[in-house]
């Protein structure tokens, strides 16, 4: 009996002493965290996609708090949450969100499907674009085009990209794409571009990045840009430039007249986003239509 009493007393006393030590220490060495940090973190989507340019949502939260202390939320945006989330964040911080009405979307700048670009050799290595790219120019005659191993698809957290088995190319689903940019970072050939789309989710895009000279580019793929500049001549708003034998269309200047698409002898210019127009899509289910940022703000 005595043993039990003794044990209870000893353990009880030890517990009491240690508890008081813990209490004192926790008070003395308490880390003062800005209460706003927790609140902002709770508002952010928690996807940790990195689309805002920070390593994750908590880093974005601290960036927001720091920016609020400096007086402006400029250059901060959450592509996933869009304007709605940033307005909430701004309300917590007692600031105003800076809106950029330009919607953005990921665009695959290659149209080298199985039909357009013949496979002339096999690749039996690891099915990862990064390794396929480092190993050689790939299974077709184009050293710049899509490798088709789907690194971009596996990096997308929102289901916005999928591999089309028929074409062997990734496809963007405009309703799900948040323009976070994870796919663009994953592509070793830099074929995915996060583009502002100024005309209700529709835009003109040169779907080719082949920098080879005309003849070589022509032989590599049926729909390659050969840098002929016909589109530049036809464009009335000076939106097209040709650099390194590839045409590029500035979305901000493009009026969507479609003359370049008609003029292109290689059919490499395409109107994108026609798969869903805003009319068919309820606004609240479309996170792309409203994002805030001042980066690359459209004119």
């Amino acid at each position, binding site marked *: 009996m005595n043993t039990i009493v003794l044990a209870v007393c000893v353990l009880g006393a030890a517990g009491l002493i240690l508890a008081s030590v813990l209490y004192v220490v926790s008070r003395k060495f308490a880390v003062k965290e800005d209460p706003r940090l927790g609140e902002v973190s709770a508002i952010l989507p928690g996807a940790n996609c990195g689309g805002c340019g920070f390593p994750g949502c908590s880093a974005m939260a601290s960036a927001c708090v720091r920016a609020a202390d400096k007086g402006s939320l400029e250059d901060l945006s959450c592509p996933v949450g869009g304007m709605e989330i940033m307005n909430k964040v701004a309300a917590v911080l007692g600031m105003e969100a800076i809106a950029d009405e330009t919607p953005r979307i990921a665009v695959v700048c290659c149209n080298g499907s199985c039909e357009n670009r013949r496979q002339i*050799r096999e690749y*039996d*290595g*690891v099915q*990862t674009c*990064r*390794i396929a790219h*480092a*190993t*050689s*120019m790939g299974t077709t005659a184009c*050293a710049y085009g899509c490798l088709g191993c789907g690194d971009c698809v596996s990096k997308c957290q929102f289901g916005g990209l999928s591999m089309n088995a028929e074409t062997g190319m990734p496809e963007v689903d405009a309703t799900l794409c948040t323009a976070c940019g994870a796919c663009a970072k994953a592509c070793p050939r830099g074929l995915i571009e996060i583009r502002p789309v100024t005309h209700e989710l529709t835009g003109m895009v040169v779907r080719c990045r082949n920098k*080879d000279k005309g003849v*070589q580019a022509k032989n590599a793929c049926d729909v390659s840009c050969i840098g002929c500049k016909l589109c530049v001549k036809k464009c009335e708003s000076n939106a097209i430039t040709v650099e390194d034998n590839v045409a590029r269309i500035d979305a901000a200047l493009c009026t969507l007249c479609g003359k370049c698409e008609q003029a292109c002898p290689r059919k490499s210019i395409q109107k994108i986003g026609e798969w869903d127009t805003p009319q068919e899509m309820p606004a609240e289910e479309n996170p792309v239509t409203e994002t805030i940022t001042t980066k690359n703000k459209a004119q």
Partner: protein
Amino acid sequence: MKTFKIGGVHPEENKLSAAEPIRLAPLPQVAVLPVSQHIGAPAKPVVDKGDKVKVGQVIAEAGGFVSAPVHSSVSGTVLKIDSVIDASGYAKPAVFIQVEGDEWEESIDRSEQLVRLEELPGLTGKDIVAKIQSAGIVGMGGACFPTHVKLSPPPGSKIEWIIINAVECEPYLTADHRLMLEHADEILVGVSLLMRAVDVNKAFVAIENNKPDAIELMTQKARIYPGIEVVPLQVKYPQGGEKQLIDAVVNRQVPAPPALPASVGAVIQNVGTAFAVYQAVMKDKPLFERVVTVTGKSLARPSNLLVRMGTPMSQLIDECGGLPENTGKIIGGGPMMGKALLNVEVPICKGSSGVLIMDEKEARRSRPNPCIRCGKCVAACPMGLEPYLLADGAAHEMWDMLEANAVTSCIECGSCQFTCPSHRPLLDYVRMGKSTVTGIIKSRT
């Protein structure tokens, strides 16, 4: 018998062409000479379309100190300067020359007569390095590092030995073996020249024990060359790696990158490079031809050919009996470190040591299975790394972890993948991790 201490594997040797004397390959119709046949800045073309060139004429000048000039390997007319797919699998700029006759530069001494070092007493180390640089000589074992850079060690490092890499540890390849049997004296004069170039009086010629005839011949010939010693080594891959060779021959360990072999007092040169040095210094002949092993189990006549640079591989394969029907892959180099080629028109470059034809069965990659944690890759790694861990880390993009586990020390020898019973693509991932981590480290400075 000496060998390196950590790891290593012993693949089937398959030296099919070891008894085949070196034959002269026919001249190509069009020679395609990439301007970047070496590590470092690409050479700058100095010829234009329509220019007439002779064999040995400079067609592209070095693009910097770590670079090498390119000489014409044929005589004829420059057709165009265009891109060609080289062994790297990507298109690179190259000079195309239409071959007309075979007219050499007059300065090149084409006689077979051996010129000994004693005949040129006034030759200084600086003269030798300058001649090597202007002859466009690069490491001919496959790495293609400009030789004159290796012979100009950073200040503060004291060179004690030259080690000649004649181990030829890659299976199938026999080019160096045949070169030693047929040009032993020239190689030994070349070694003496290299010794004078870096001012040392000791050189080792390291030969693996599967070439007893070469060991015997070289030992016997080396008697009259002061300071040159032939070292037989146990057969083990990757003994031809610089660090492994230094460990095997002089028992010193090179620290992790960026340390160079010079930091432990050794300069390594390939035996083919020693031969090229002899030809450049004693015969004024720039580097425009090399011995290439064309081999494979399915090939009718595996051979060792003396080939002009820029000859398409298809021509060499035709010379050895034509491309077999059931070819699965054509490898540039040996089976362990070589690279599958995109087509047979890839030109022979300064670093092309072999062309290996693999039939469909040999070329097929086995389906990878899950890692069974057997640790064979760790035991096989000659750099003492943990390949299973590095491969996993690379697959999950854990770059910090890879850096902490010394991924940059990997020599990409492929021993881990070779030994893996689960056929895991370890090297593919480790190589990807290594290049990414190297990029991250570079971006910091």
